[in-house]
């Protein structure tokens, strides 16, 4: 039987506030255990939560970025369950009237086509603390620093049909929250995490199959792996005539498998009810319009502008605008390089990103700044150096040996563009290679292009790569004619 996969994602984005969602305790990552957990976060008797204005503004920003409706009224609810890292015995979340309702997102697929994925809703909630099961003997250690950290949970429609679409969607959300500067997107630190709902149905069937939920997947690569493994597992069961159990499963990247967490049917009875400690949030239309007018340029708009303004290809523009910091780097680089966009794009997507990858660095940590790269590209453009020599210059800049001009100067890499000097080199090679000259001159014109490579190679060797290749080619052609 042919099966169709149905995937929906729930993404938790930690909002980049200074203080918690309902208290004035700090949210900084990596502090000593429980030094950032105040009486409100600990759920001590007599405390009252007070909503952080910034989280409301951030959620609205996100809603507007995905063309969602922002309801005038929003309320908070208690989601009741017992776990030691949840001191109150309930999590403050939203059930009815979430802050962001239905929106849409366009994702780009590998074949270049686009697809619209619906966002059902996005709601605000507080994060729980952290349980540590190792190192405390037969006890579990609880760190409540994370308790009360603001989260925006973004729930998609079950619109994705394979793991690649799910990854594209997740990357798009990641890109948007970073553009909006409402989440740092750091997946290692758990600021951006994802649960995936996966089910199968016979192709053509309208009704959804039973789904499983894959929990806490913390990288783009793992999302793809986890979903694909789960698809295989479900198909195997269904083809053997079995039934899928609705349950929560955990992805284990080391064993490359998903496995059942304790069955949660009963635990899932959350008994949501409106939180009497929190009044409804009223969102004025003027506030929404003000935020709308202040929205930054978003990935899709930036991509189109790059295509129009810099005459970049769709692909290049997509690569450069996926991350805001890369786009900013590119624009600074181009302006330093006196408008040389295509070369800038090639160097950023090529040499620079390869070097960054090799050292697992983000573009913001690049030892070669946008100004430095732009300065080097300017020297390629004005023929001071060739593209080949530029690689040496780039490497030296990467190793902290200075900017392009000082490296070109100190290493004597300036390209030879003096026609007289090049002519001497050309004449030398021609005199010393009578056989190759004869062969070249005997060859039909369409083969000469290939044969000329020998002479160019010799000359570049002689000049240590510094002869201007264009001039070398022109002179050679001229001289070999006769």
């Amino acid at each position, binding site marked *: 039987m042919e099966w169709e996969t149905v995937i929906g994602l729930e993404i938790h984005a930690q909002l980049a*506030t*200074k*203080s918690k969602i309902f*208290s*004035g*305790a*700090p949210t900084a990552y990596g502090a*000593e*255990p*429980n*030094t*950032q*957990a*105040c*009486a409100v976060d*600990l759920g*001590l008797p007599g405390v009252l939560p*007070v*909503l*952080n*204005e*910034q*989280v*409301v503004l951030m959620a609205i920003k996100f809603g507007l970025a995905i063309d969602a409706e922002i309801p005038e*009224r929003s*309320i908070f609810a208690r989601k*009741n369950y*017992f*776990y*030691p890292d949840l001191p109150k*015995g309930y999590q403050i979340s939203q059930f*009815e*009237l979430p802050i962001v309702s239905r929106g849409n997102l366009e994702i780009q697929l590998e074949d270049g086509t686009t697809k619209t994925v619906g966002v059902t809703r996005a709601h605000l909630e507080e994060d729980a603390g952290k*349980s*540590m*099961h190792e*190192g*405390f003997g*037969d*006890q*579990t*250690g*609880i*760190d*409540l620093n994370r308790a009360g950290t603001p989260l925006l949970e973004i729930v998609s429609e079950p619109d994705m049909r394979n793991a690649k679409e799910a990854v594209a969607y997740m990357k798009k959300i990641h890109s948007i929250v970073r553009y909006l500067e409402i989440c740092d997107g750091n997946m290692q630190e758990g600021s951006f995490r994802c649960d995936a709902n996966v089910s199968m149905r016979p192709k053509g069937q309208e009704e959804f199959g039973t789904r499983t939920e894959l929990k806490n997947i913390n990288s783009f690569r793992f999302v793809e792996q986890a979903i694909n493994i789960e698809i295989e597992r479900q198909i195997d069961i269904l083809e053997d005539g079995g039934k899928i159990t609705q349950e929560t499963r*955990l992805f284990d990247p080391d064993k490359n498998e998903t496995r059942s*967490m*304790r069955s949660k049917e*009963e635990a899932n*009875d959350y*008994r949501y009810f*409106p939180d*009497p400690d*929190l*009044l*409804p*949030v*009223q969102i004025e239309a003027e506030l929404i319009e003000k935020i709308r007018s202040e929205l930054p340029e978003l990935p899709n708009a930036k991509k189109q502008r790059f295509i129009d303004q810099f005459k970049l290809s769709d692909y290049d523009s997509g690569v450069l605008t996926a991350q805001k910091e890369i786009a900013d780097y590119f624009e600074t680089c181009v302006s330093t390089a006196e408008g040389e966009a295509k070369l800038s794009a090639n160097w950023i997507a090529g040499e620079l990103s390869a070097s960054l990858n090799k050292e697992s660095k983000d573009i913001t940590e690049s030892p070669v700044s946008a100004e430095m790269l732009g300065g080097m590209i300017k020297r390629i453009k004005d023929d001071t150096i060739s593209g080949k020599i530029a690689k040496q210059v780039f490497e030296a800049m990467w190793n902290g040996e200075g900017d392009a001009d000082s490296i070109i100067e100190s290493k004597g890499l300036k390209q030879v563009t003096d026609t007289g000097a090049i002519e001497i080199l050309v004449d030398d090679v021609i005199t010393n290679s009578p056989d190759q000259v004869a062969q070249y001159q005997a060859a039909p014109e369409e083969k000469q292009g290939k044969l000329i490579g020998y002479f160019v190679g010799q000359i570049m060797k002689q000049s240590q790569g510094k002869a201007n290749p264009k001039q070398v080619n022109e002179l050679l052609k001229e001289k070999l004619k006769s």
Partner: protein
Amino acid sequence: MSLDKTEVQKIAWLARLSIDEQDISTYSDELSNILGLVESMNSVDTNGISPIAHPLDLTARLRSDAITEINQREQFQKNAPLTDAGCYLVPKVIE
């Protein structure tokens, strides 16, 4: 509507309440009475009336995003039965 024994036990479990076997029928009667009250409210025509989320007709005042709390771990942990290395300790829970 009336709740049977297993439903009462389930509700108690969800709230982590330990109840005595002999009290179950009392709880069952009392909870059923509450449900009865809700049921009679259900018979009222509420079309066109928007639900209230809060008994006070007010909206939330928000606080600005500022750090106003200092670290009081030592004081808070005086109340905890067990702590170690800055963590609160609980009996081991493993999923």
